[in-house]
Every structure is written in C-alpha cells, then in structure tokens.
C-alpha cells in the first residue's frame, strides 16, 4: 500500500507539472500530428497506400513522440537540483520508477488516442475491433514507458542526453514497434483476422513485464549515479 501511495506521489507530481506547463499537449502532440502529415507527403495519399500501412506509421509517430516524452520526464528533474530532491525524498526508488513510468504511460496513452483519431481522419481508416486494439495499445504503452523511463534515468544528467537516448532506446523497443504494428494490422483486418493479434499482445505484455521489473530493480542504483 505504501508503494502505491509513494508511486502516486511521483506520478501526481509529474502530471501536475504537465498540467501547468502543457509541454506534452502543446509540443509533443503537435509534433506527432506533423509526423503523420509528413508520412502523407512522403507516400502518395491517393494511391491507397496510407490506410494499408497506417498501423506502422501510427506506431512510428508514437515512438518518436515517446522519445520526446521520456526526454521531458527527465528534463523536469534537471532544473533546481530536482534530482537531488528526488534522491533525498526518502521515497522508495522502485516506487519512483513506477511513478515516473506511469506518468509517461498516461501521457502517451492520451497521445495515442488523439493520434489514433488523426490516423482515422487523415488516412481514411475505419476503426474496429476495439477489444483487440485497446489491450494491444495499453501493453505497448506500458512497455514503451517502462523501457523509456529506464533508459531515461540511465542517460539523465549526461551532456549528450538528447543524442544518446534515441540510440539506446530505439533498438530496445524494436519488439514493441513490431508487435504493436502487427497487432493493429490484425485487429483492423488489414493482415489476418483480429484473433491473430493475441500472440502479439502477449509478447507486448511480456516486454512490459520484463522492463517494468528491470526498471524497478535498476532505478535506484542508476539514480544514485546520475
């Protein structure tokens, strides 16, 4: 119970900062929408390619936005020695990890919903099989947030943070990109039946579980060194 309360302290702090600064909504979200537009410029929208490759494009946009969201989550801790404050707060480091990851996950999920609406609007796609898409998106989001938070603290405080984070994080989350795209393709009936999405959802769940556990264990030692 204590863990949950401590977790929520951290999550609430990050969400409160977001509510006041509006960086994710005001900067990361428009960035994601621009990426969706860029894809339309790159692939001729009139030839019907866009709806077929929409799941992949959607997840690439989410992945790029997630990089920014994770960067932001740790940029918060740079100013005014906030990281030292976190270290000295006496909160459990595992709870801190879960709290920060949850804040990232919540913001990402909101982002996905809005970007999803953008895909439906721009790419002429009919949403269906929500009973498959929602669990797939949730599992992928938790995995992205967990791995992102883990690598975020690893790169925190380094002068090369902005350039290093993508190099570290993108290969690691390759399975999420792959699994979420396949699950969405199956769910939307673009490639196989919706039922074929479940193995991918399970894989995404496994990924989320592994990285949540790793982050829970490694966050303390990494925060100490940051």
């Amino acid at each position, binding site marked *: 119970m204590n863990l949950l309360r401590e977790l929520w302290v951290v999550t609430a702090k990050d969400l409160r900062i977001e509510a006041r600064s509006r960086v994710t909504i005001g900067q990361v979200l428009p960035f994601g929408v621009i990426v969706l537009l860029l894809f339309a410029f790159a692939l001729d929208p009139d030839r019907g390619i866009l709806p077929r490759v929409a799941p992949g494009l959607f997840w690439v946009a989410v992945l790029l936005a997630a990089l920014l969201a994770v960067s932001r989550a740790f940029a918060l801790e740079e100013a005014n020695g906030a990281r030292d404050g976190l270290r000295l707060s006496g909160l459990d480091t595992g709870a801190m990890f879960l709290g920060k990851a949850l804040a990232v996950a919540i913001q990402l999920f909101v982002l996905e919903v809005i970007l999803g609406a953008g895909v439906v609007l721009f790419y002429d796609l009919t949403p269906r099989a929500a009973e498959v898409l929602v669990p797939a998106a949730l599992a992928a989001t938790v995995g992205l947030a967990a791995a992102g938070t*883990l*690598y975020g603290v*690893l790169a925190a405080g*380094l*002068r*090369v943070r902005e350039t*290093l984070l993508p*190099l*570290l994080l*993108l*290969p*690691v989350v*390759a*399975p999420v990109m*792959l*699994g979420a795209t*396949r699950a969405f393709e199956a769910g939307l009936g673009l490639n196989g039946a919706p039922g074929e999405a479940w*193995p*991918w959802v399970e*894989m995404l769940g*496994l*990924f989320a579980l*592994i990285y949540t556990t*790793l982050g829970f264990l*490694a966050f303390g*030692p*990494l925060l100490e*060194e940051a």
Partner: protein
Amino acid sequence: MTAAKPPDNGHRRGVASLPTNPRLLPRRVSVVLGWSTLAALALLTLFGLWGAPPDAVQGDAQRIMYLHVPAAWLAYLAFTVTSVASLLYLWPRTRSTVWDLLAGASAELGVVFTGLTLLLGSLWGRPVWGIWWAWDARLTTTAVLFFLYLGYLSLRRIPASVETRAKRCAIAALIAFVDVPVVHLSVNWWRTLHQQATVFNPELNPRIHGVMAFTLWLGVVAFTLVYVYLLDRRYQLAVLEEDLEERELDAAIAQRVAEAPSPRPAGVHS
C-alpha cells in the same frame, strides 16, 4: 589536513580499484596465442578456399560460410562475456574494475564481429538470394543487436568516474542482453527466410560433414583465437588508457598547485 602535501588520493578517480596488472594473460601466453591465431587463420584460408569442396547448390559462394558462421558465433560469445562480466561487476563480492574493462573490451569485439557477420552475410546473400539484404528474422535480429551494443559503446565513452561509468554500463549491458531473446522471438514470428541452423538445429543433428564440417570448425577455432587474442590486447589498452588519464590528471593538478601564488595550494578545500 590535505593542504600539507599534494593531494594524492582525494581527487583520484578510484585509482585504487584499477587493476595493478594490465595484462589479462601472461606475456608469454599472449605471444604464443598471437602466433597460433595467425597460423589458424592461414590454415583456415587454405581449407576455406581450396581444401573444402564447392557446395553442390551454391558453388563457391558458399565458402563465405566459413567466415560468416564463426563471426556470428563469436559475436554471441563476446556479448555473453560482456553480460557475465557486467554481472560479476554488479555482484558486490566480485566487484572489480577488471570486470568492467573486460566487459567493455568484449562488447567492442562483439560489435566488430556483428558488423562482420552482417557484411559477410550481405556478400553471401547477393549471389545466393539475389539480394544484399532481406527482412529475415535472423538478419533483423542481428541488425538490432548491432545497434543495441553500439549504444552501449557510446555510453562507455561518456566521461565519468571509473565507478560511476562501470556501474551504469554494467546495468546497461544487462538491460541490452535481456532484450536479445525478446527481439529474437518477435522477429522470428515476423518472418523467416534465412536457412535454419546447420549445426545447432532442433534435431541436434549436424547437416554438414567431411571436409566442409572440418573447415567450419576450423573457422570457429581460428575466430575464437582471434577473439581471445584481441580481447587480451584491448583489455591491456583499456587499463593503460585509464592509467594515462590518472597520470595526466595528477600532472595537471600538480602544475596548478605549483602555480598557486598563495602558500596554501589552490583547489584543496576538502
């Protein structure tokens, strides 16, 4: 207290933990190993190019296998060594900078071997598959592996104290290693074009015999020797690099102390 004499330990970046012996292997062993490596590579060249018969289907192109497969095995061996060394570093009882430097040296070799695997595979794929690159499970996994450890090497290059860097990198190495089976699984479900494993196949029945099998094993032995030899050299280089950095820092501080106009040496407040 420290003002009386030049600071010897206070500022040092954990010099006490630097290995006193810069060599992994005794000098004599290293020399013998070097020559054996050269001999094994020469033998491999002979067998790979002339000793082994051309493949019934693929002809001479198949000879790339004698380099490609050992390179891939060695890449996995190198990353396994990195992970084990990182684990030994993180384990409090076995914590030593030796493991950190060994992990770094092995990861560097692993990236080289992975790059070599991709390059050789590409050269092999062109005549056999008709394409330089295919979105096949193993190719994709190997490419992801390459970038995973490239990131690890970048992390290693970031200046920090020996302990900080070692701990951070050891954790990063383990996180990356855990990702490998997940990448493998996901990519395997995605697609498979690459031929199945010849030696370690599910039936554990090697589908390769005679001179070809001998040449392949020779390749593995030769590449293992290359790996061990280079690991030894790279490790020694890493220890000397750390040592040099310590000495330069000492010299720079001594110079600053000597330049100080006041009787109290500057910069020593603690």
